[in-house]
């Protein structure tokens, strides 16, 4: 009887030990997994944040460089700007173009003026389309064309037509030109 009770007691102890062991294994595994996932999550977060910060830092460095370049190239930019018309200069520019005709010895009339769509992303450079007409000898009209091409502005001749009037023998020159206009920075 005593031996049997002793045996039961030993069995109970072993089973209890086994249950405690299983519980300990499961709980320690869960604890370790939780800690591992947590640490890994934070490390990933650190890596991502660090990458974003690096990108921002690079961008800021780039902007600093651009700002320095813009500051250092002020005189050169002013020279480039001089090739572009501003809103205030349009009237005087048209008068200058008509003045070229006087210089050449032909009459130059501005037939049409229109503003096109901006050609740059910031919408600061806009083409100004001009249609000019002049009459005279072929030499004079040709000379006028060379002067227009050499005009110190961002100007390009898109179409030119020289045609001789059948009856009078004089030549008529039609010029489609584009001058670039720039909006001043706000």
């Amino acid at each position, binding site marked *: 009887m005593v031996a049997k009770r002793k045996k039961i007691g030993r069995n109970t102890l072993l089973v209890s030990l086994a249950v405690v062991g299983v519980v300990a294994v499961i709980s320690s595994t869960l*604890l*370790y997994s939780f800690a*591992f996932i947590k640490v890994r999550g934070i490390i990933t977060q650190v890596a991502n944040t660090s990458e974003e910060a690096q990108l921002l830092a690079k961008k*800021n460095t780039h902007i600093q460089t651009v700002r320095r370049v813009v500051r250092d*190239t002020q005189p050169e930019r002013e020279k480039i700007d001089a090739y572009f018309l501003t809103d205030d200069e349009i009237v005087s520019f048209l008068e200058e173009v008509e003045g070229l005709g006087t210089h050449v010895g032909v009459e130059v009339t501005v037939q049409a003026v229109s503003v096109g769509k901006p050609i740059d992303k*910031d919408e600061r450079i806009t083409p100004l389309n001009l249609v000019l007409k002049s009459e005279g000898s072929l030499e004079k009209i040709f000379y006028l064309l060379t002067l227009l091409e050499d005009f110190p502005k*961002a100007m390009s001749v898109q*179409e030119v037509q020289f045609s001789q009037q059948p009856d009078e023998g004089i030549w008529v020159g039609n010029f489609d030109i584009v001058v670039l206009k720039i909006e001043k920075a706000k």
Partner: protein
Amino acid sequence: MANVLPKKDRETLRKNYWLRVVVTLACMFTAAMLIGTTSLIPSYLSARTDLAEVTRYEGLQGDAQNATDGDSATETARVVNAQIDQLLKDRNVNASGVIQQVMRDWTTHAEDIIISDFSYDVAGGDSSVPQLRVSGEARSRSTLNAFVQTLKADPVFTKVSFPVSDLAGSGNIVFSLVLEFKL
């Protein structure tokens, strides 16, 4: 040595033995997991510190970025680039040079060829290359042909074309040539 234990007791003894082995292994495993977990704590704390530092650095860079958003330097740089592109693009357009070249070639044929129209188009009409259209009147087919040959021999012009229908008729021939050229 003979095992004198009864068979049932031997079975129980074996079971108890394996149970002890399993419990011992479980204890060892638990101990290993606890040691691992403990060793992760410094890593966790260090990572937390790193995260706080990196977040602060990112915040600083973000503030600097926001401060430069209103800055016009980038826009100015973009506009200058666009200006330079336009100035370089326009440099290749040269209507007077091409018309002058036709006039030079014309001088040797001036007696037989009358040019009454020059039309220069930078967009080139139907094609995308700039073109010069020269129209006029020739005294005969052969004089027109000679003028065309002179233009074709000129290295400035890459293509000289005219409708064959212009060769019809006798006497004066009205022609219209289309010239393509090197920029």
